């Protein structure tokens, strides 16, 4: 607010006086008012000291916070709505608004803030080395920057568990290790004596899947082989859909297969007919699998459909890597044409395109939207890729060998890089979501809590049939057309309830059932419904015309004047 001017003072006093004058009659109102209304009014209350409340009413909530928790638009009120429905809608709207407000208020109380990295003036943040950052931060955070020198069995694929506590490393030459990486405790380490294509945690840190040379294997956290799944062969890439308990695998033979890990059944096997599948990612919002192909297309798949839901031509030359952000809005792809492209997958339109001199072999997005791209042995991290055109990386780091697998650790400012010479854990300030939800993924959960969570999660396992492009479809009104509903009914009943019986003319003797007379009789009943409709409409029209004529006559008589144009009237 601008400072008050001398000429405004008088006016303000007047206003205040007016305000007081206005309040006086308000106080005279009967005291039977509800508490709620009084709260809403707010400012009327005064303290014993006589001073007015400096912050009347409930604390305001910033609009952007409210928008964060907005689930849907308010329903437009129709004029002719049933009063019960109207009431129901208004009530539900009220409760949802209250929930939104409460969530927004609660958001202010969240304990942790996100990390950040700011350079001095004239200093690029990308020039700051990992050692400097590790020195600058506290010891526990500094210890999160480390290198594992594993030159024998590399290059390594990396996977963090959903809570971010556990790290799974899979070396190309058969070395598989799982580590509680924060305490640096080794949980198990095995050599499967076969080439390893990919590793993935299943829903908890007690089980993981390893795609080996021929088959898919499941191990537990002690390194004991639980299953060898022979239905899944030559798997190159895997994705785990945590809410569906599905392990999606892409194989060298071009098959996309889904394994339900809770019951151990193959849910779907889709032959994509697009050759070797080694680029894969999932959309965390709707559990759609994105596959990148050597002809530059990216295809979207659900287990319910044999064909791709969407095919997008993204690059000239093959697609090297695909990733989708947490909110399911943006897709980032990199290709052999050395480009990095940003797509909006609500509209399937490109937003931005960047040229990277060496091209990115691996992409990974963090929870807060930082993008890491590996070009050879350099890992670059970008910020705000989709909103503004980026010229410089946010951070950069050179690892010892060619980067093979990248993943941001959930709920931590850490990027795990698996490369030819082992594993590097990088510090990337501002990458992780600072406040986790204890009922969803709790990094500090105890064994009991994990078991409890597992039971709950299994109980609300989403069936694979519900995987669609729009995950909120289930909550919307299904406006099936009449024909569609009719078709459903026909299939359910096994016959058509609305079908009319075909008219079969009765046989008559004495030559009255000749072909000609049969046709004549048939004609009598043909299009009976249509005839009825026509008859009715004609009658209605006549009626209206008659009424109008009478009305005209009346008005003509009453006015008594004849217009020159009346002769054109019918």
């Amino acid at each position, binding site marked *: 607010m601008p400072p008050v001017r001398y000429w405004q003072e008088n006016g303000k006093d007047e206003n205040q006086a007016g305000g007081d004058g206005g309040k006086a009659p308000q106080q005279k109102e009967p005291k039977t008012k509800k508490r709620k209304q009084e709260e809403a009014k707010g400012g009327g209350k005064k303290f014993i000291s006589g001073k007015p409340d400096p912050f009347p009413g409930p604390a305001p909530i910033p609009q952007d916070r409210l928008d*964060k*928790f907005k*689930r849907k638009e308010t329903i437009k009120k129709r004029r002719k709505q049933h009063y019960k429905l109207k009431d129901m809608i208004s009530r539900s709207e009220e409760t949802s608004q209250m929930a939104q407000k409460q*969530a927004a208020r*609660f*958001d202010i109380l969240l*304990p*942790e*803030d996100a*990390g*950040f*990295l*700011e350079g*001095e003036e004239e200093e690029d943040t990308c020039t*700051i080395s990992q050692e*400097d*950052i590790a020195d*600058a*931060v*506290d010891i*526990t*955070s500094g210890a*999160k920057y480390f290198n594992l020198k594993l030159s024998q069995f590399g290059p390594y694929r990396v996977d963090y568990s959903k809570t971010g506590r556990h790290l799974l490393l899979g070396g190309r030459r058969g070395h598989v290790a799982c580590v509680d990486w924060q305490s640096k405790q080794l949980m198990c380490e095995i050599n499967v004596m076969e080439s390893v294509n990919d590793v993935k945690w299943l829903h908890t840190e007690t089980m993981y899947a390893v795609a080996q040379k021929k088959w898919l294997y499941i191990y537990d956290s002690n390194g004991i082989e639980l299953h060898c799944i022979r239905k899944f062969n030559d798997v190159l890439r895997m994705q785990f859909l945590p*809410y569906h308990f599905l392990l999606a695998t892409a194989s060298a033979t071009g098959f996309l297969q889904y394994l339900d890990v809770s019951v151990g059944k193959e849910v779907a096997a889709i032959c994509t007919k697009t050759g070797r599948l080694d680029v894969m990612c999932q959309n*965390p*919002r*709707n*559990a759609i699998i994105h596959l990148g192909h050597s002809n530059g297309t990216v295809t979207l798949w659900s287990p319910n459909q044999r064909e791709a839901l969407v095919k997008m031509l993204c690059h000239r030359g093959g697609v090297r890597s695909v990733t989708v952000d*947490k*909110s*399911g809005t943006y897709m980032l792809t990199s290709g052999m044409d050395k480009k990095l492209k940003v797509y909006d997958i609500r509209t399937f339109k490109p937003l931005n395109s960047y040229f990277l001199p060496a091209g990115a072999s691996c992409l990974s997005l963090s929870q807060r939207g930082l993008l890491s791209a590996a070009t050879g042995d350099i890992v670059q991290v970008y910020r705000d890729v989709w909103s503004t055109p980026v010229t410089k990386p946010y951070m950069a780091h050179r690892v010892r060998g060619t980067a093979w697998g990248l993943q941001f650790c959930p*709920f*931590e*400012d850490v990027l795990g890089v698996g490369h030819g010479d082992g594993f590097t854990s990088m*510090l990337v*300030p501002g990458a*992780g*979501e600072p*406040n*986790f*939800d*204890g*009922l*969803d993924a*709790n*990094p*500090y*959960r*105890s064994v009991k*809590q994990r078991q409890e969570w597992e039971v709950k999660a299994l*109980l*609300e396992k*989403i*069936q694979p049939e*519900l995987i669609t492009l729009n*995950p*909120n*479809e*289930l*909550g919307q009104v299904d406006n099936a057309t009449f024909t569609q509903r009719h078709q459903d009914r026909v299939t359910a009943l096994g016959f058509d309830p609305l079908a009319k019986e075909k008219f079969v003319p009765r046989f008559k003797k004495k030559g009255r059932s000749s072909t000609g007379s049969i046709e004549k009789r048939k004609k009598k009943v043909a299009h009976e419904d249509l005839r009825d409709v026509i008859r009715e409409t004609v009658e209605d029209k006549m009626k209206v015309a008659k009424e109008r004529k009478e009305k005209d006559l009346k008005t003509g008589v009453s006015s008594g004047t004849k217009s020159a144009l009346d002769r054109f009237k019918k």
Partner: protein
Amino acid sequence: MKVKVLSRNPDDYVRETKLDIQRVPRNYDPTLHPFEVNREYCRALNATKLERVFAKPFLASLDGHRDGVNCMAKHTRSLSTLLSGACDGEVRVWDLTKRECVRTLQAHEGFVRGMVVRFCGTSFFTAGDDKTIKQWKMEAPGYGEEEEPINTILGKTVFTGLDHHQKDNVLATCGQQVDIWDEQRSSPIRSFTWGVDSFSSVRFNPVETELLASCASDRSIVLYDMRESAPLKKVIMTMRSNTLCWNPMEAYYFTCANEDYNLYTYDMRYLRQPVTVHMDHVSAVLDVDYSPTGKDFVSASFDKTIRIFPKDAGHSKEVYHTKRMQHVICVKWSSDSKYVLSGSDEMNIRLWKANAAEKLGMLAPRERAAVNYSQKLKEKFQHHPQIRRIAHHRHLPKNIYHETKELRTMKEARRRKERNVRKHSKPGSVPVVSEKEKHVVTVLK
């Protein structure tokens, strides 16, 4: 260089000692909780399935009567007391918490036709086939004392029903006419007749206490005002009504149990057509009783089932049956709205839960919250076909299942015929009669 890296103190996120409960920090950010709708749907589906799993309404069978149970009465003051009268004139008083008979008395010779507890709860009245009305003390006689009624009224004709005024010392009986009695006198204060008929039941209005309604054998329901000398009005239906019950909350509505397998809810002020026709029974409906909330009522039928209807729904939401239960003659909804009691032909009284899947006893706060949450979810997703199918499924005995099917076919055939008649007659000569209008013959004043 300014840098901050996420660094959480584990002490803020784990419990201090083993005696504490675990800390669960929450973050309601929608992006951290994907598939909200789908997960809620799964929960709703599970809740619906569990409801069907836990739907075990039958609680207990009270046996002891040596003949079919003909009438029951709720105690007006005590939740755990139930009175029942049998076809051999025996009256039993039951303790429902212990599920045992606490008192037996031979009240009449022949049927006990009607029974009602006085509003004060200290005595009760029985009416029997031996043309008497007897008043009994609620307390059992002391040791060595004879079981004797306080008061006996000798009537001229057989009584078929009995009800007591809500506040005054006034009784109403029905038989060949509807009589209003003073408790102290041996002759009725007032008698109502309207045409030659006999009455099967009479009920006082619980709110407008001077009003009465009765079901007559000439297919009519008659309304009376006790203060007037003549009846108010009557509605004649196509079939006879057996009993009726007033809605205790909206006391201008009453529901009658009809011989034509249906129940009809009427608005007292507008008898031209019923407010709702409740169908589902496949045999004559013998008794009906409202829940004290006035939202549901229970009906007993000759088809060996009892059904629970929402007051404004055309079809039942619940059906109870067991293999051993025969024709159900009387039914009562307990005053705490939690239980339903049914008395049937084969000498037993059965205790049912009013809400089949409800857990009995105290609920822990978290349990209560979980129940409320799943209830809301079920409500939210009730129209999804899968959930709807599971929630609506009820197992029926084979004969009832087939009977229902047969009735439906018959109804459809009748409808088709009517449609054809309408089609081939002069337009307007065969009007469309709605299901509600169909069953009312006339209203007389």
